[in-house]
């Protein structure tokens, strides 16, 4: 049973065709990766899945429900969470308050005029657990802006996970990281997405091949190939279109 189905998705921006028909499915606990050279439409596709844009044609089906025209906040409530390529957290808030925002949203405590989230033991405990999962338990009271870059990326992940999503969408999760930070990030992503489906948009081939169960290659708005890492590595069209450029 697929948690996410992308069916014939097209997108054009005032006449410019960015996506010309993209189809794929992501299984319930599958890690799926979309790769492609710059300008292939990866980010556009990502924004269509997460609800920032609407597709010009085609459908996005999440958990058996057509979500193509639903706003981003409804998708989040249904169990879809995204991370951002450029760290997009609450800079002046503590690490704990950052994840609390998602934890209480998941618990439906968004607009309550009487209950105080900081006085809710259960919410606070769940927030602490999220921080532990991303390795920031010791930094819980540190304002996000004072964390090191790698820690901020971990918090970005924590905020995403704070919704306890069924599907995690990761936009270049290792962008700007050193080799060692990347290694740590890979093992963390592997750990925290064990029980969820995951779609990763990534540039770094090393990351993609070590994380993804299946990979699809996007090339000028069309899906060039889709398969296991081994199949993709062996695919001649992919080599011509993309892997060759790796040497640059």
């Amino acid at each position, binding site marked *: 049973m697929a948690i996410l189905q992308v069916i014939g998705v097209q997108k054009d921006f005032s006449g410019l065709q960015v996506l010309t028909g993209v189809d794929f499915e992501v299984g319930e606990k599958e890690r799926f990766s979309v790769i492609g050279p710059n300008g292939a439409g990866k980010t556009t596709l990502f924004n269509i899945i997460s609800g920032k844009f609407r597709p010009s044609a085609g459908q996005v089906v999440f958990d058996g429900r057509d979500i193509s025209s639903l706003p981003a906040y409804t998708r989040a409530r249904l169990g879809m969470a995204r991370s951002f390529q450029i760290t997009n957290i609450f800079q002046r808030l503590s690490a704990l308050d950052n994840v609390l925002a998602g934890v209480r949203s998941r618990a439906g405590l968004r*607009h309550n005029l009487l209950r105080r989230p900081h006085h809710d033991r259960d919410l606070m405990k769940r927030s602490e657990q999220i921080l532990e999962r991303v390795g920031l338990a010791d930094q819980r009271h540190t304002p996000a802006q004072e964390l090191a870059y790698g820690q901020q990326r971990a918090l970005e992940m924590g905020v995403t996970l704070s919704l306890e999503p069924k599907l995690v969408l990761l936009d270049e999760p290792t962008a700007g990281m050193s080799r060692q930070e990347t290694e740590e990030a890979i093992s963390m992503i592997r750990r925290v997405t064990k029980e969820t489906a995951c779609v990763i948009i990534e540039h770094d081939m090393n990351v993609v091949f070590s994380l993804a169960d299946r990979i699809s290659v996007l090339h000028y708005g069309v899906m060039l190939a889709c398969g296991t890492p081994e199949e993709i590595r062996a695919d001649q069209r992919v080599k011509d279109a993309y892997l060759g450029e790796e040497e640059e």
Partner: protein
Amino acid sequence: MASQNAVLHRVGLALALALLLVMPWLLGSYQLRLFTEAVIFSLYAVSYNMLLGYAGLLSFGHAMFFGWGAFSFAVALNHFPGIPLFGAVALAMASTTVMGLVVGVLLLRVKGTPFALLTLAFNALVFAIGIKWHSVTGGDDGLSIACPPLNLGFTALNVSHGANLYFFTLVIVGAAIAFAWYFTRTAMGQSVLLIRENEERMRFLGYNTNVSRLILFVLSGALAGLAGSFYAILNSFVSLDAVSIEMTTKVLLMTFIGGTGQFLGPVVGAFFFTYVQNYLSDLTDNWPLIMGALFIGMVLWVPGGLAGLAAKLSGGRKQGDQDGTLAGME
């Protein structure tokens, strides 16, 4: 360290409460009236700062709520003879809530400068209703009211002036200010702060940020409406002054002078403004000129306002280090 601070806070709060309770015995009747007015304006300014300081929404139309509350209260008293005092106050707040909802739905489609300008336009619209709808609002003549006694069950108190009015104001308006403080710690209050920090992320965390802003707008308006009804009781009269652009300017000055970054900033500003205006208007008719100059000076050189200045002098408590509440404009 933290617990010592908490003890200090509690002692300070207890002292302040005790002082508030003995005010009628410390002040003459004129001074007590002035003090009561400052308490009412405190709520007005606190409600304004919920928009400005907490949500970062600059409104040039807060008097529409204040005036709407004042006029609704007066109209309720004049049109429903025998209505109990609390009934009239509740009606005034309810009608301000409905008005806030209607205006909010229309206004909150836009942000930033268009929002500020539209609030100004709506304020002008409400003012126009006040001046033209003579049969209900009295137009230029205003409405005088006879405040009914407050029925306490065993006795009925006349709360239209003096110490009784002061205590009545202290309890009801004080409770509203206390609620506004509590609000900053609630899920809704925290959501407002987080939306100001990073609206995009909040949307991707499942928050319908437009709804959050609308709830805040309506709540802030209802509290301003409550302040307006007490202003009507204080003066036994409502005039167009309550809904005028001057009344909007007044809350802007109070809030900026007091400081948007701390919860008590607007309260400090309201007291400062009320007393300084009272003093200056005795000296010269040109007092608005001095107030304006003061406002410009504060904005230019003391952007944190009086409360921010006090916090800085008392040891530089950092902005928003209390319970992670981040009150403060950038």
